[in-house]
């Protein structure tokens, strides 16, 4: 069987790419190793309850009618109506550091006034930072690659404010330890502070189901339990893909959302091709409450917290790092009707290797201990909900690795992104997280961009020319 395009992975980027290609009449097949779709942002059932794997909030929220920005772009490119995603905006979030809290909502003015109020000396610097972020263009590559820490330090002197700004951006999208490049910093700053956070009442499954339905209606083929084991190459191209069961598939083009390093391994890429794997992974705890969180005083949507003098963004030495984390109450969005049950989710940095080395018994105990430590850490920043927990679950870097195949359970992939999407093989392209756009919205944009650029627009060699040509329109 031969396809115009084969896509590796039915995560958000693979599905978005698939829709674009199927829409334009390409014969396209998505191969997914797992038994279900969604990848890093899937959903599952446990003891009769539905849980989302990843979703805290969708970033990049803009209200209906907005014509600019990544959300508008996704809707247009995938031919979705705004209503199809059924997004409800956040109630309000906070960055909580020792002695100071900064609130933010989807109205940037609140965040701005909070910064002005708590850091009056940094007012001008913050404005300079905000305008640099607004002016930032992806096409300005020299600026994109610069150290965001160094650039921000040029505007803002107080390291506390610097750390408070970096904390949410790193938790929601930095594959790189310690620092971010200014391009990624700008993209994340816009997506969280200038645009905003939202969630569909029904969770990520609503988005995934809409994507799959659209893909199949357009004639796309989705194969689950169809992992790609190897890509056989001939004359600088992928000749065929060999699946886990030994069967083969051919495609004119291959788009892979499996990760850059992981993809290179499948096709025996030259050593120089594959950068290092990402190191940053998470433990996520989920607690179901017998009450709506707001009734207990947990009324914020997301709280990014840190208890130390400085905020540390690197792989922990130990199993987990409980100094900082993200607390999310999926209940606290402006829904028309409340969610059925209360829920508190917490994300904390974790070390894949430390988890991997544990025996099954040690693992079970460590998971329980991590749940307790993380929640004990979090209740310093929100009212203590722990006596109201009626069910819980915890997943670790090894869970993430097992279900998504990403090395080290690295949620944001490798720090060395492949912006062009191209590889040493002429018909193999990278999409999703390792192309450089992360998060639910980012990775969908990536799938769309790569499908457009490398499959639909193959007659046009140079993207810069297209952009230049259309700038004249």
């Amino acid at each position: 069987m031969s396809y115009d395009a084969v896509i590796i992975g039915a995560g958000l980027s693979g599905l978005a790419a698939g829709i674009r290609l199927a829409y334009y009449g390409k014969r396209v097949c998505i191969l997914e190793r797992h038994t279900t779709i969604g990848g890093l942002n899937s959903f599952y059932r446990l003891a009769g309850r539905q849980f989302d794997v990843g979703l805290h909030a969708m970033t990049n929220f803009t209200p209906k009618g907005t014509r600019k920005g990544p959300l508008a772009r996704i809707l247009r490119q995938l031919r979705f109506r705004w209503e199809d995603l059924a997004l409800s905006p956040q109630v309000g979030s906070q960055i909580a550091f020792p002695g100071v809290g900064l609130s933010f909502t989807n109205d940037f003015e609140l965040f701005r006034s909070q910064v002005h109020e708590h850091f009056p000396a940094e007012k001008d610097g913050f404005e300079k930072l905000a305008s640099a972020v607004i002016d930032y263009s992806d096409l300005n590559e020299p600026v994109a690659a610069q150290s965001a820490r160094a650039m921000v330090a040029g505007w803002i002197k107080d390291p506390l404010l610097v750390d408070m700004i970096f904390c949410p951006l790193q938790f929601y999208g930095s594959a790189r330890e310690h620092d971010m490049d200014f391009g990624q910093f700008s993209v994340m700053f816009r997506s969280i502070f200038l645009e905003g956070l939202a969630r569909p009442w029904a969770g990520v499954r609503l988005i995934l189901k809409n994507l799959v339905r659209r893909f199949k209606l357009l004639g796309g083929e989705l194969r689950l339990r169809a992992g790609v084991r190897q890509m056989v190459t001939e004359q600088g191209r992928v000749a065929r893909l060999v699946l886990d069961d030994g069967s083969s598939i051919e495609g004119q083009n291959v788009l892979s959302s499996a990760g850059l390093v992981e993809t290179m391994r499948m096709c025996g890429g030259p050593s120089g091709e594959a950068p290092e794997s990402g190191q940053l992974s998470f433990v996520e705890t989920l607690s179901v409450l017998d009450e709506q969180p707001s009734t207990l005083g947990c009324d914020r949507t997301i709280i990014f917290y840190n208890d130390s003098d400085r905020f540390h963004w690197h792989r922990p030495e130990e199993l987990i790092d409980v100094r900082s984390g993200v607390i999310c109450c999926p209940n606290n969005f402006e829904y028309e009707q409340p969610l059925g049950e209360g829920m508190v989710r917490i994300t904390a940095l974790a070390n894949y290797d430390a988890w991997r080395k544990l025996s099954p018994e040690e693992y079970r105990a460590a998971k329980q201990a991590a749940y307790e430590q993380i929640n004990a850490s979090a209740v310093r920043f929100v009212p203590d909900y722990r006596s109201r927990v009626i069910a819980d679950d915890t997943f670790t870097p090894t869970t993430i690795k097992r279900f998504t195949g990403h090395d080290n359970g690295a949620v944001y992939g490798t720090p060395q992104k492949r912006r062009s999407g191209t590889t040493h093989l002429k018909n193999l392209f990278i999409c999703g997280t390792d192309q450089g756009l992360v998060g639910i919205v980012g990775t969908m944009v990536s799938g769309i961009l790569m499908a457009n650029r490398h499959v639909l627009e193959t007659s046009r060699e140079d993207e810069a020319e297209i952009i230049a040509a259309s700038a004249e329109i």
Partner: protein
Amino acid sequence: MSPPEIKEAILDILESIAPDEDVTNVKDDVPLREQLELDSMDFLDIVMELRKRYRVQIPEDDYVQLATINSTVEYLAPLMKDLQKA
């Protein structure tokens, strides 16, 4: 296809690209880029939709012709005159 039919075809395409827009309000002589804030990806989509629906190929150098509804219709008229309305 006659020029009014071509205009209708373009509005259909715009409607499919931006389902939330009311395309009946689109002005014929104001750049689409301004009115609908279309970006380069959207213009590529218009080109690809024309190719998909009517098999019209538009070379890259001619994208500038797609600035407004009027200029697009004018540009497409000779290319689409022999086509039947879809």
